[in-house]
């Protein structure tokens, strides 16, 4: 089976030759190719070379476009900086004073270098892997992007206490997100993964999720050309899954390392795709044996679950993760087989 067939099998709950798996190795491609990160996160060609190296080393069933929100924040006017072992980050948000909210404008996707980098990376990946390996586009959630444009505190203040401004900001973000996401689909991605932070009751009130976030996401996702994986965004998600049940175009949920798959299944049913949940960002801090033991437990836990893809949780797999940990997980998956009955 090809990776695409394996992933589709997981979506449909049909038989596969082995468990579909992926690791978030967007960053790790730079390490494998020795590419400076300031180049890796600005050159679509260098990004493609990195992802080819990732594929050659561990054959994940899903590859990702750059897992970096800085280019999007930069497109909205925020100042970013490059790091040696992590994706670029925001140095100064565009809006420092909430009264300047009106200065936020939607960037021109066609001319913005950072956004073009994301789109070109998607296109090069799709062209290279020619449908054999699903390409997952990664974008910031339209409900989280304001936090990198104006800072967490300012966005929280607006989201909680100023319905009118919140509505105006969400409207702007929606306009940008739908255009950008659909451009990603036009450039060949098969689905989107959207880390969701300000959509989770661990960050905002459940009533905010119900009254503001879910209606906004339902509207936005209904206008997308392809499906979305709702990513936990660094917070446990299993207990809150019923909140998102009626949002259209959700193909699956990527769970947090602390999530319990049984609880998730109870809350979302047997047929929704679930992904997870080996913590990726700390893989550099644990031994290979420990990582493999944890991976084995996850696979055993989901042995009979056909709608499951083994994946890392959190952001990128850490730069310092030993190569033997990554190849060890690949070997484990190879030998584990289909898993399900």
């Amino acid at each position, binding site marked *: 089976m090809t990776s695409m067939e394996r992933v589709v099998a997981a979506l449909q709950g049909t038989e596969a030759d082995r468990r579909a798996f992926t690791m978030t190795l967007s960053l790790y491609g730079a390490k494998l190719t020795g590419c400076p990160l300031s180049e890796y996160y600005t050159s679509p060609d260098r990004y493609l070379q990195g992802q080819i190296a990732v594929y050659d080393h561990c054959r994940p069933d899903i590859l990702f476009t750059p897992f970096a929100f800085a280019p999007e924040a930069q497109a909205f006017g925020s100042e970013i*900086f490059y*790091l040696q072992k*992590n994706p670029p*980050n*925001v*140095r*100064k*948000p565009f809006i*420092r004073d909430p009264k300047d909210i009106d200065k936020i404008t939607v960037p021109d996707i066609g001319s913005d270098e950072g956004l073009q980098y994301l789109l070109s990376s998607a296109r090069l990946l799709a062209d290279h892997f020619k449908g054999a390996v699903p390409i997952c586009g990664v974008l910031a959630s339209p409900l989280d992007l304001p936090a990198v444009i104006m*800072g*967490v*505190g300012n966005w*929280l*203040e607006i989201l*909680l*206490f100023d319905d009118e401004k919140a509505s105006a900001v969400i409207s702007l973000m929606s306009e940008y997100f739908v255009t950008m996401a659909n451009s990603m689909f036009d450039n060949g991605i098969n689905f989107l993964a959207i880390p969701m932070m300000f959509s989770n*009751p*661990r*960050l*905002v*009130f459940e*009533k*905010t999720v119900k009254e503001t976030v879910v209606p906004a996401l339902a509207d936005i996702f209904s206008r997308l050309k392809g499906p979305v994986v709702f990513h936990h965004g660094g917070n446990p998600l299993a207990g809150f899954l019923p909140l998102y049940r009626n949002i259209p175009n959700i193909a699956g949920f990527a769970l947090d390392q602390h999530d319990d798959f049984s609880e998730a299944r109870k809350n979302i049913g047997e047929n929704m795709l679930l992904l997870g949940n080996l913590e990726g960002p700390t893989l550099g801090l644990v031994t290979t044996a420990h990582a493999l033991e944890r991976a084995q437990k996850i696979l055993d836990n989901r042995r009979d679950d056909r709608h499951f893809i083994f994946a890392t949780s959190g952001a990128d797999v850490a730069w310092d993760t030993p190569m033997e940990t990554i190849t060890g997980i690949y070997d484990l998956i190879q030998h584990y087989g289909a898993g399900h009955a």
Partner: protein
Amino acid sequence: MTAESTRISVIEAILGGERELANSLLDTYAAANGSYRRAMNEVLEPVLVEIGIKWAEENTSLAQGYVAGKVAEDTLFKIIRDEQDILHTQEIKGTVVIGNIEDDFHSLGRKLVSIFLQSAGWIVHDLGSDVSPEEFVDKAAETDACIIGVSAMMYTTAANIKKVRDELDRRNLSGRIMLAVGGAVFRLRPELTREVGGDGTAANGYQVPQLFAELLARSQRETLQ
């Protein structure tokens, strides 16, 4: 309503995101008992401690913590409004300087810390975001502050805090002026406090007044030696 029943209602209001209701309950308690100072001491401070415990146990959301901070800020403003004439006679615990280290713009935690410190009787000079080591130490020297509190969210910016320690050392102020450090990265990497030269850290904003009281005592001991 008794202090206990008001506390329970205020906690419920804050955890439910009802900032106005929480303020209204505190208004009622202050009116019945003579002052917002009493509402702060008898109701809100215990409420903040309880929410702080829930926060440490990861049983509250960011928004709930934020609303707790806003309610504390609202009450604090009412105390300042009502006690303009007598504020100078109340016990001031000390003067502190706080800010986000250079290149760091994550101000939410710092703002909450400022509110909790002021609620606990500290004079706070908040220098804002992206503050240089020299600015921190200049302001502390100018205001005779005993503690500098520096916040950073990420490892990359937290590393800049070491320059504040270096500046304190260069001016022979270490020991007399304590260096408190905080921010999300210090929860993830507790060893970072020592790496950047910090004298102490707190797990969350609610615990900062206690940390600062301990650092003040250390500062006084070291100054006497």
